[in-house]
């Protein structure tokens, strides 16, 4: 295997500056690995030729001494980010042939900073799921195998193509979106780093909307440093997104290596229910010890509304989705199934174009917003959402960050669990309250289960305190010395 795909961006950049390697060689190494790991089905669309062309341009900039901050960074992009001229499907049949006429702001910024898009990654249809099994383009396979190699495992979701690609070294970093855990949960299950930034930190312009008050874009990478680098370049105000904040984005790299001595870490007791997976609990305790060793003060806290987070989410997210997905009507883009009347056309198109899980959520959303149900469900959920948020606000009066496991379990087998919708929804139990409150959260790999599968811990912080997240995540990364897959066993 090519050594180039093992290195961090700063190491690669140094090699290019030393003229030991070219960006073209780096991109070639990554596109080769993409082909070698094709069976994982991490990508919906690949663009190796375009990537190599951009690599040439990056090489020229390096030669002229005009290299940009991310020049030559091989980046995978979740297939719900519009990229001009590149098919963008959101994992759905209804957008199977959709080619955007514009590029999402975050992709624009990352490409403007020099990163090179190598392909669009697979995802649960319209980002609705936690397993990347609901994609019209088939499931993505987790590059990690359990020791007995008995079956293929899910990579988590909905950004499972992105996390699988980073874990399989077919990209150096990737973009995902997180509505209820869709970056952090797949990051944990694939043994990579993933951050959901504060709501409003990154522009949502050009991202195919799922639930607009919860959606947020964020990066994946194999190291905290590369994750911080990507976020630094993609964050910031955008006049095309009225929910993006006017905020001066700090240099997150400066947070790495800073001491956490005297800082306070909250451990919410509600996240340790009876029957919590013993291996997850073990690695949680281990992470607490590492943070204590590094000088942090660990305190128990309570987030009493935690248990209501998930049912609240399963009203608000489908309600917003049912409105957002009304645009797929067979008129302006996407699939059309003809009908005698316009109403028939809408109905036939949507019936044929959406998969089961998307239909289920549209119907739930339609129901909770319908006359006679709106107050009882939707308004009630918005009020409980405020209670969940108040929990966090109160906690951050006492602590700097909160530490929890990212997931309740390690990756499960493809096909398992999917019949019980509530069991499936419980995949999001540790991640979803973060989206309700809008606060940032990062998942860092800490170790392996006895089966040999990755386990991730989640650090949560107050609004716009991403620096603290990177500071803590870096301490955990240094202590855990988690060995990524290295691409060898693939």
């Amino acid at each position, binding site marked *: 295997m090519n050594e180039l795909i093992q290195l961090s961006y700063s190491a690669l950049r140094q090699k290019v500056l030393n003229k030991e390697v070219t960006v073209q060689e780096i991109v070639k190494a990554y596109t080769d690995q993409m082909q070698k790991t094709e069976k994982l089905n991490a990508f919906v669309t690949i663009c190796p030729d375009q990537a190599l062309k951009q690599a040439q341009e990056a090489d020229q900039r390096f030669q002229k001494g005009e290299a940009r901050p991310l020049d030559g960074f091989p980046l995978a992009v979740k297939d719900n980010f519009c990229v001009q001229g590149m098919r963008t499907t959101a994992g759905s049949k209804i957008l199977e042939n959709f080619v955007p006429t514009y590029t999402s702001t975050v992709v624009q910024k990352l490409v403007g900073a020099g990163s090179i898009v190598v392909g669009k990654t697979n995802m649960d249809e319209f980002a609705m799921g936690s397993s990347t099994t609901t994609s019209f383009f088939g499931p993505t396979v987790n590059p990690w195998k359990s020791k007995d190699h008995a079956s293929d495992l899910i990579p988590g979701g909905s950004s499972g193509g992105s996390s699988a690609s980073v874990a399989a070294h077919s990209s150096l970093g990737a973009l995902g979106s997180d509505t209820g855990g869709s970056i952090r949960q797949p990051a944990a299950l694939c043994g990579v780093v993933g951050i959901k930034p504060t709501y409003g930190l990154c522009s949502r312009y050009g991202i195919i909307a799922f639930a607009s008050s919860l959606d947020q874009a964020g990066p994946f990478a194999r190291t905290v440093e590369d994750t911080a680098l990507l976020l630094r370049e993609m964050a910031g105000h955008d006049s095309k997104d009225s929910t993006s904040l006017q905020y001066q984005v700090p240099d997150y790299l400066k947070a790495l290596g800073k001491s956490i001595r005297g800082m306070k870490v909250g451990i919410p007791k509600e996240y340790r229910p009876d029957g919590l997976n013993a291996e997850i609990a073990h690695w949680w305790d281990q992470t607490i010890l590492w943070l204590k060793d590094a000088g942090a003060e660990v305190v128990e806290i309570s987030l009493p509304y935690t248990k209501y987070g998930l049912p609240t989410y399963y009203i608000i997210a489908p309600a917003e989705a049912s409105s957002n997905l009304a645009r797929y009507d067979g008129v302006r883009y996407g699939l059309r199934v003809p009908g005698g009347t316009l109403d028939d056309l809408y109905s036939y198109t949507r019936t044929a174009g959406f998969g089961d899980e998307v239909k289920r959520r549209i119907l739930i959303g339609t129901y909770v917003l319908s006359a006679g149900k709106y107050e009882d469900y939707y308004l009630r959920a918005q009020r409980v959402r405020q209670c969940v*948020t108040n929990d966090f606000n109160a906690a951050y009066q006492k602590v700097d960050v909160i530490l929890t496991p990212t997931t309740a379990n390690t990756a499960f087998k493809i096909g398992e669990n999917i019949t019980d919708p509530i069991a499936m929804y419980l995949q999001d139990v540790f991640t979803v309250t973060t989206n309700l409150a809008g606060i940032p959260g990062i998942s860092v790999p800490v170790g392996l289960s006895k089966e040999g599968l990755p386990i991730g811990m989640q650090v949560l912080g107050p609004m716009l305190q991403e620096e603290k997240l990177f500071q803590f995540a870096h301490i955990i990364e240094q202590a855990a010395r988690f060995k990524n897959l290295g691409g060898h066993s693939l």
Partner: protein
Amino acid sequence: MEIKKQDILRIERLARLKLPEQEEQGFSQRLSKVFDWIDQLREVSIEGVDPMVSPLDTVNVPKTTWRNDEVSDGECQDQILSNAPEAQHGYFSVPKVVE
């Protein structure tokens, strides 16, 4: 809470999508189960709590500013129509709506 088949038919109509007929019964059971679980929210005392519409209300930085009301994109009618399943004379085309 029980979601009846007639509820499913009503929301299918509102959402302009149909489930296969043999699945409608299964779906109503499935949704009933989801709503039984969602109904635990009735335990929460929400008196005096305002509905939360957006997380931005809790952030202390300037939010949106009005941008000038100027066209900043456009001139891409052909590209946009190239995604349309059917277009005629520079318009999206649909079945006849008015007799």
